[in-house]
């Protein structure tokens, strides 16, 4: 499975219109997205596992 597949549809698309209208998302939404990023192991994909990244290449 492609890394990140389905993440945008499930965790980002639902907030698009609210962000566009308000130019802002509530902190609880931001935190929920941050947690989802961690759950999907998408945080810092460009950095080494040694430092808490996902160890994928930066390219």
């Amino acid at each position, binding site marked *: 499975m492609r890394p990140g597949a389905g993440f945008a549809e499930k965790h980002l*698309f639902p907030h698009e219109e609210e962000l566009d209208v308000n130019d802002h998302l509530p902190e609880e939404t931001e935190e929920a997205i941050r947690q989802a990023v961690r759950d999907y192991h998408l945080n810092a994909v460009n*950095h080494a596992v040694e430092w808490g990244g996902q160890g994928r290449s930066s390219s």
Partner: protein
Amino acid sequence: MIVNEEVAKATGALWGRVWLPPMCLKDGTREQKEEILRPACAGKVFVAFCTSEPGAGSDAGGVRTSAVLRGNHWVVNGEKCFASFSEGADLALLTTIVDSDPKKPTLLIINPKTKGYNIKRLPSFMQRSGHGHPEVDIRDIKVPADAMLGEVGQGFELTKDWFVEARLAIAARSIGMAIRATELAEAYAAKRVQFGRPIGDFQAIEFMITEMAADIMTGKSMLYRVCAEIDGGLDRKHAHAKASATKWYCSEAGWRVVDKALQIFGERGAMCENPVERLHRDVRLERICEGTSEIQKVIIGGHIRKRGLDVYTGWS
């Protein structure tokens, strides 16, 4: 890059919520990596990158923000613009020149909440992302002497590495946006009936979708190939050369594709509730940020002059 491509399908720069700490943080000392990189990877510390100035954009040699070592501190003065996301960041990498000497470009690590980091203006932009691109006045900020990434004089090399990463990310995002817009336009063309037929059955629309598909295929092939070359150990100069060409091609292709998608939707494509309208605003910016298409061509031309056409054409 695959992650960038996937998450950029969301509009309003929501892709930015999937954080990528600046790659050059790997060049920090072990202590800097423990104190900055590790929490940045965990999403507990956000690090902005501030290079542009009123007189220095793509021409990083025009940076005038100065750093002078006084005892155990750098004293920093200058001005930054498009200091993206720094208004809410925990730390920022600041491009400076030491002793006002352009031969000593240096990256300092500052806290943007420090007294002296004054946000002058937070202009509104066509993309509504919830983050800003402030204009900043920097006055007598004191920075500990060891809060420096790399060495004095290494600032541009580290910035160039960041540009390679950022430009490939833009290329990937442009492709992701183009894919979503094409999927939406194709689905709409299949169900929208005019003159007794789905509009997708008219060749005028069908040809637009075929051009969109081919543009995506071409850009994506180029992007994946260059990324594979870099992963295979391509040297820094060639990586810089190829990242520029990839950024230029994919952002222009992304723009062509999303513009056609909006055209297929007709008036409905201009409605803000339609993701294609928002993608249209988003992808337009990709032709500008981290070096306009014209600047990319200047870079490509420079590499051809210095290294020969083979950089771009001499592969099998």
